[in-house]
C-alpha cells in the first residue's frame, strides 16, 4: 500500500477544508464579526495538521482501489473531526461527541442534529453548519479534483469511492473538467434556488442557508421551528421542488446542457424516480387529507414530505409523528429507497432498486421455466453479471448493517420504531426519524456511544458502505 500517497491525499483534504472555512469566516465578518476569531483559529489548526501530514507530493503517485478506499474513508473522517473544531473551540456545542456528530451529520448531508436551540448559534456557525451540507453533497474529492490532479491517471478510483451509485460515468474525458461541470451545475442550481427564495420574501441569510442545505440534500434548519417559522407556502413549494431536482442524477443535467433532452428524459431511473414521487404524494395526500381538510394544503404537505424524505434531505414543516400509520410507513419506505445514483442524495438509490426488482422477476420466471434464457436491461443496456451481483451484495450488506445497528441501539432501551428509524435515517442520510428524534425533536437524547455509532453509520452511508467497511477488515491492513 502506498502510505505516502495516502498521507498526501489526506493533507490535501485538510488544505481544501481550510480553504473552504474562509467562507464562514467571511460570513461572520459580514454579520458583525461574532465567531470570526474561532474560524481563523480553526483554519490555522487545520492548516497545521495538513502541514504535519506533509506538503510534498510523493514521487510514486500510483494508487489503486485499495489506497483510494482508505484515503476517502479516512479523509472524510478527518474532514469531520476538523470541521467540528469551530463548534468546539467557540463553545457553541460543549460536548466533543456532539460536535463530531453534528459535523458528520453536516458533511454526510444527513441533517440529524443534537442542538436543542439552533437560534443560539452565531450566524457564522449557522452558515458553516449549512455549508458542510453543500460541500458534502457533491463531495470534497470532486472539489479537489477540480483544482488539482491527485494521482495521474488513477483518479477514477478516488472518484468512484466518493460518488454515489453503482457505476460512475464521466461526462468528459478529463476528470478535472468533469468535476468542473458538476460543480458548475451544482452552484448554478443553488444560486437559482437562493434567488427564488429571496424573491419569495424569506430573509436573505435564511434563503442562502436553505439553498445550501437543499443542494446537498442535507436538512439542517436555521430556526428551531424549521420551515414552519416562515409560514410561507411559496418557499415550501420552491424547496420541495428543488429537493426533487437535487435528487436527480447530475449527468442528466449535463445532457440537457448539451441539448440532448431526449436522451435525458429517456432515463429509466429518472422516470421511475418521478413516478414514485407522484404516486407516493397522492397516496400520502389521501391518507392525511382528514388532518388538513384543505385540498391545496394537503397537496403541499404530502408533496413536501415525500420530496424531503425521498431526496434524503430532511427539512420538515410538520410533525409527521402525529400522522396516520400508513403515512409513517410510507415515509420509512421512501427513506430506504433514496434518490437517483449520481445525485447528492443518499439511500439505496433508485437504480439499484430497479436492477434488484428486475433480477428478482427474472429469477422467479427462471424457476418456472428452467431453460429459458434472457438478459436484464437497464437504461437500454444489458446489465452484466458483475453489476447485478454487485447490487445484490450491496443490498445484503446494507441489510446486515441495518439489523446489527438497530439491535445495538435497541439495547439502550428505545422502542423498535425509534431505534430502527434512527439507524435508517442516519445510514441513509435523511435526518429526522420517528420518535424522540422526529421532526420536532432531535438526537440530543441518545447516549454518547449511540451518537458515535450513528456518526459512523452516516459516514458509511454517504460513502456507500465499502470505503468505511474496508477500514474494519483486518486483511486490508496486513502487509503480505
Amino acid at each position, binding site marked *: 500500500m502506498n502510505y505516502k500517497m495516502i498521507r498526501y491525499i489526506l493533507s490535501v483534504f485538510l488544505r481544501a477544508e481550510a480553504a473552504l472555512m474562509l467562507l464562514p469566516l467571511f460570513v461572520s465578518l459580514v454579520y458583525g464579526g461574532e465567531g470570526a476569531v474561532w474560524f481563523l483559529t480553526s483554519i490555522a489548526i487545520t492548516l497545521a495538521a495538513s502541514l504535519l501530514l506533509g506538503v510534498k507530493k510523493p514521487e510514486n503517485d500510483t494508487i489503486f482501489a485499495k489506497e483510494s478506499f482508505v484515503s476517502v474513508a479516512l479523509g472524510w473522517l478527518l474532514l469531520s473531526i476538523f470541521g467540528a473544531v469551530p463548534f468546539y473551540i467557540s463553545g457553541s456545542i460543549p460536548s466533543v461527541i456532539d460536535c463530531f456528530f453534528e459535523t458528520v451529520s453536516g458533511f454526510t448531508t444527513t441533517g440529524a442534529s443534537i442542538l436543542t436551540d439552533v437560534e443560539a448559534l452565531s450566524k457564522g456557525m449557522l452558515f458553516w453548519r449549512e455549508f458542510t451540507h453543500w460541500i458534502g453533497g457533491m463531495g470534497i474529492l470532486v472539489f479537489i479534483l477540480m483544482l488539482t490532479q491527485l494521482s495521474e*491517471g*488513477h483518479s*477514477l478510483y478516488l472518484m468512484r469511492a466518493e460518488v454515489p451509485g453503482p457505476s460512475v460515468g464521466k461526462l*468528459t*474525458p478529463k476528470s478535472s473538467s468533469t468535476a468542473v461541470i458538476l460543480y458548475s451545475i451544482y452552484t448554478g442550481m443553488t444560486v437559482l434556488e437562493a434567488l427564488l427564495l429571496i424573491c419569495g420574501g424569506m430573509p436573505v441569510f435564511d434563503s442562502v442557508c436553505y439553498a445550501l442545505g437543499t443542494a446537498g440534500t442535507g436538512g439542517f434548519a436555521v430556526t428551531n421551528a424549521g420551515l414552519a417559522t416562515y409560514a410561507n407556502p411559496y418557499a415550501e413549494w420552491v424547496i420541495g421542488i428543488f429537493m426533487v431536482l437535487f435528487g436527480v442524477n447530475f449527468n442528466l443535467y449535463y445532457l440537457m446542457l448539451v441539448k440532448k433532452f431526449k436522451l435525458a428524459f429517456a432515463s429509466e431511473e429518472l422516470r421511475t424516480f418521478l413516478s414514485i414521487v407522484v404516486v407516493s404524494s397522492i397516496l400520502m395526500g389521501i391518507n392525511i387529507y382528514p388532518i388538513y381538510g384543505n385540498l391545496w394544503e394537503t397537496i403541499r404537505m404530502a408533496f413536501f414530505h415525500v420530496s424531503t424524505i425521498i431526496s434524503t434531505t430532511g427539512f420538515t414543516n410538520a410533525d409527521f409523528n402525529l400522522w396516520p400509520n400508513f403515512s409513517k410507513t410510507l415515509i420509512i419506505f421512501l427513506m430506504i429507497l433514496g434518490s437517483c445514483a449520481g445525485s447528492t442524495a443518499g439511500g439505496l438509490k433508485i437504480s439499484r432498486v430497479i436492477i434488484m426488482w428486475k433480477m428478482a422477476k427474472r429469477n422467479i420466471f427462471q424457476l418456472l421455466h428452467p431453460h429459458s434464457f434472457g438478459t436484464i436491461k437497464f437504461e437500454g443496456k444489458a446489465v452484466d453479471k458483475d453489476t447485478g451481483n454487485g447490487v445484490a451484495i450491496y443490498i445484503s450488506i446494507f441489510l446486515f448493517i441495518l439489523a446489527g445497528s438497530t439491535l445495538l441501539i435497541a439495547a439502550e432501551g428505545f422502542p423498535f420504531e425509534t431505534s430502527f428509524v434512527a439507524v435508517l435515517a442516519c445510514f441513509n442520510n435523511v435526518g429526522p426519524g420517528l420518535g424522540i428524534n422526529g421532526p420536532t425533536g432531535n438526537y440530543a437524547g441518545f447516549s454518547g456511544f449511540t451518537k458515535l455509532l450513528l456518526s459512523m453509520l452516516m459516514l458509511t452511508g454517504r460513502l456507500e458502505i465499502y470505503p468505511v467497511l474496508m477500514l474494519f477488515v483486518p486483511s486490508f491492513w496486513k502487509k503480505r
Partner: protein
Amino acid sequence: MKIVVIGAGKVGRALTEQLVKEGHNIVVVDSNTDIIAGIENSFDVMGVVGNGASQSTQEEAGVQTSELVISVTSSDEVNILCCFVAHQLGAPKTIARVRNPEYRNQLEMMKDELGLSMIVNPERSAALEASRILRFPSANDIESFCRGHVELVEYHIGEDSPLCGLPLSLLQETYKVKILVCVVRRGEEILIPNGDFVLRAGDKINITASPENISLFFKAIGSLRQPVRSVMIVGGSMMTYHLAHILLSMGIRVKIIEEREDRCAELAEDLPKADIVCADATSKDLLVEEGITDFDAFVALTGFDEMNIIFGMYAKAKQVPKVVVKVNHISFPEVFESSGIQSIITPKLIAAERISTYVRAMQNSAGHSTVQSMRRIVDNQVEALEFVVHGGDRYSGTPLRDLPFRKGILIAAIVRRGQTLIPGGSDSMEKGDSIVVIATNGVISELDDIFR
C-alpha cells in the same frame, strides 16, 4: 485536442497512454466492457462500450465534435468503416490501421471519401525498424533522421570496451571522429552528459553523427561488424512477411521457420526467394539442424513474447552475432537487460510513436516549425525529434550557447545543405536547417517548445 480512439487493443492502449500524457482529451471506444473498465482505471479518459463502427456509438463518444478519430481495431475492414462513419459524422481527420497490403492502393484512391489522413501499419513499420537494425548490427538500435544525414544509435558499453574511463571531452580527439554522445543511461538514471562526464562499463549511450562518422567511430573502438548477409526468422507472422520482403530486396538471404502449413504456403507464394521451413522451432535440435550457427542474425517474430525471448536467449547462447526479438505485450524492460538481448522491437509502440508524431504536427499553429518525425529512445523515456527551421524565428542566427533552452533539451545535430554538423556552443540554427532535438522531459510539438 479531442481525439476518439476506437479499439483498445495493444496499439490502442499504447496510443491512449501516449496521447493522455501529451494532455489530450481522449475518448476510448471498445466493445469489451472489461477492457474499457481497465483503461478507465489506468488513464484519465472517458470510455464508451459499443461497436465503434456504428453511428450511435460514435455519437455517444462525441465523434461529431472531435478533431481526430483513430481506428485501431484488429480488423482492417472495421477500421475503414469506422473512419468512413466518423468522417460522415463530421470528424475532420481520421487515421486507420490497415495491415493487409492488398488494401493499400485502393485506400489511396478512397482517401478523400474516408477523410483518411494517415494509414498505419504497425507490422510494416516494425519490419522497417528491424531491417535498419540488421543493416547496422554494431549498435543495439539505430534511428535515422534528416533523410539519412543523421543517425542516432544506441550502444552498450561492455566491460572490455576502450571507452571505459574516457571523459567525453576527449572522445572526439581520441578517435578523430565527429560524434556526439547525447543521452546516457546509467542504471535507472537518464542524463544528458557534459564534457566532464566519464563513461563507465554498463552505460548505455546514444550517439548522433553522420552515417560515415558512425561507421568510423565503431571501427575506431573496434566493434564494427559487417552488415548481415543472412537472417533466420522464427515465426511466420505478418511482420515476418514485411521484414523478409525488405531483406530479400536488399539481397540478404532469409530463412523462415513456421509451424502452420497453410501459412507456410502463403509465405512461399509471396516470398519465392525465401527459404521456408515448415516445422516446430521448439522441437529438439531443429534450429541447429537448420544451421542457426551459420547465420549472421536471428530474429524471433512468433506471436508469443515469452517464446521470442527464449528463442532470443537460445540464439545468444549459440553465438549468433545479432539477435533481434519482437516483444509486444510484456512490459518489463528489466527482464530483457538480464536476458542479454539488446535489440527489442515493439510494434505497438512504433505505431503509437508514428500517430503521436502526426497529432503533434496537426496541432501546430501555422507558420511554426513543426515536428517532421519523432522517435522514442531509451526504453521510451526520451524523445528524439526532427525539425526544419523556418526563417525569421527569434532563435535563428543566435549562437546556441546564448539561447534559453529548457532543462533536458539538447540540439544533437544540424544538417545544413546536406552537411551534418555536430553543434557546439558557437554554432547557430539557420533558416532551412534540419535539426535533431533530444528531449528528456516534456512534450515538444514545435520548435518554440524547446525554449523557456
